[in-house]
């Protein structure tokens, strides 16, 4: 598999407070990578830095062979990196359809066809297309956030704790959808999660993050046995 994302010695933080310390990460085309870690270990910061929301202080980020370390979030999104942030972050005043249109507008291609395809992939959205995003349930909003991200036809999707506050039935549905999407679209996905079952069922490779460093790789089938505080096999 060819390399899509290559991160070398990545460091970043909030103001003068460093959070990430020398992250090295590589994701191949079509690969599903999970990042597991406790609260405050730098999981979300890693995704925000990859997306350009937080600038990298040291290190490089290369996407599809191009250095995007200094690129703006908008430029990275246009290059093919999709981001579904924690807390869904849909546009509450816009209808479901308008949320999808906003997601598709940057592609510059046939919006209607792209949106129709996404709606087929997320049938739960079909009956609620005219409803305002703000009145949807948490699970529906999460599905909408993912669908909106896919409207931009990304090659890599960064998913930040998609199961946070979502009811179990929707989590199962999301799991099935993500599996089929990754296969059908040959998507690369970087999933940050605390839900062990979710990450073990989806990821082909799981990395542990501790105090801003990737501390090792965990066998996805043995996640329940792993002690994130120490019992991790070196990468």
């Amino acid at each position: 598999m060819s390399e899509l994302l290559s991160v070398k010695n990545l460091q970043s933080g909030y103001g003068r407070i460093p959070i990430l310390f020398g992250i090295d990460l590589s994701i191949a085309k079509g690969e599903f990578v999970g990042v597991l870690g406790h609260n405050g270990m730098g999981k979300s910061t890693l995704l925000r830095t990859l997306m350009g929301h937080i600038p990298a202080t040291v290190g490089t980020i290369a996407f599809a062979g191009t250095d995007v370390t200094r690129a703006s979030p908008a430029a990275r999104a246009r290059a093919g990196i999709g981001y579904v942030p924690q807390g869904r972050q849909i546009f509450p005043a816009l209808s479901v359809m308008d949320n999808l249109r906003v997601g598709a507008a940057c592609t510059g291609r046939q919006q209607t066809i792209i949106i129709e395809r996404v709606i087929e992939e997320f049938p739960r959205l079909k009956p609620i297309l005219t409803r305002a995003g703000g009145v949807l349930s948490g699970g529906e909003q999460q599905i909408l956030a993912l669908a909106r991200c896919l409207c931009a036809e990304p090659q890599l999707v960064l998913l930040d704790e998609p199961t946070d506050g979502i009811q179990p039935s929707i989590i199962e549905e999301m799991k099935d959808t993500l599996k089929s999407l990754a296969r059908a679209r040959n998507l690369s996905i970087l999933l940050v999660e605390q839900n062990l079952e979710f990450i073990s069922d989806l990821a082909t490779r799981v990395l542990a993050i501790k105090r801003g460093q990737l501390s090792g790789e965990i066998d996805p089938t043995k996640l329940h046995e792993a002690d994130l505080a120490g019992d991790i096999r070196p990468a």
Partner: protein
Amino acid sequence: MTVMALSRSGGVHVALAALAALAGIVILPNAAPLYTLINVTLYMSMGVFALSLALLWGYGGILCFGQSAFFGLGAYAYAVAAINFGDTTLAAVFAIGVPALFAAGLGYFLFYGRLSDVYLGVITLTVTLIFFKLINSTGGDAWRIGAARLGGFNGIPTTPLLTIPFTRIPMSPAQMFIFAAISLFSTYALCKGLIVTRFGRAVIAVRENEMRAELLGYNARRLKLAVFVISAGIAGLAGLLFANSVFVSPTMFSLSMAAQVLIWVVVGGLGTLFGPVAACFALQIATAVLGKLGIVDPNIVLGLVLIIFVVFVPGGIQPAFAALLHRLMDIRADRPVAGEVAR
């Protein structure tokens, strides 16, 4: 429901507005007395002005306290160009182009400087007050651009009337009325059309959350600058219509003018287009009637109206009216339809 079917739903409003405008254009010039005709032309120029802020603030989320700067600039650009060139068609282009160009320069520093909303409001208000002071102090022969004397606080009473394009025949009040009506409807249709385009949706997304929109690949600063420039051009068009209804004077840059347009948008409904135009008409008629009666200062009433709306009808006329209609038609309240995007 298909994507195509959903995208067609916005057209109904435009068709209804077109029908109403057409009826007005045909009936009023033949039926109404001259005084009414000129007044309605004036109201329509203000309606275009209201639309300029309704688009910028309601959809772009940019609270510009100094929209009157573009309004006045448009009128002065028209007057100066018309006096110098003798051709009002070219002057009309200047009326729209000069404020748009000025907004492009000002907006570049505002948006690319990443100024917050509060500073943006303060700076735009300061700009309009600078224009107000500057133009007021341009009395005397020394203050002229080519053959056009700026005239200080007297303004430019000799502003040439708009002529029928490519002729030297000035428009009659009835023709001016028709031109203003066409301008108002065209501007409404333009704004309505703009917000359902990719550009419009992106602008709304930036209004909702700038960072979120950037994460989806939008250049938020460029989008904000673009809507700022478009809005300034519309305000310039309003200035052109106003200059042909009344005359060009520094009051166009005044604080009361800057405040009035904000009141129209708040009362009409932020995030709507028809509401601010309706509020503009209603409040101007009310102000004129109150002024005639002389019982109470119309400005006090305007202030009261603003307070009442902010406290009791924060959504404005149009959303309140739409909600009432929905209730009457027994539409289920738990299934809101996001049509015209409200804040």
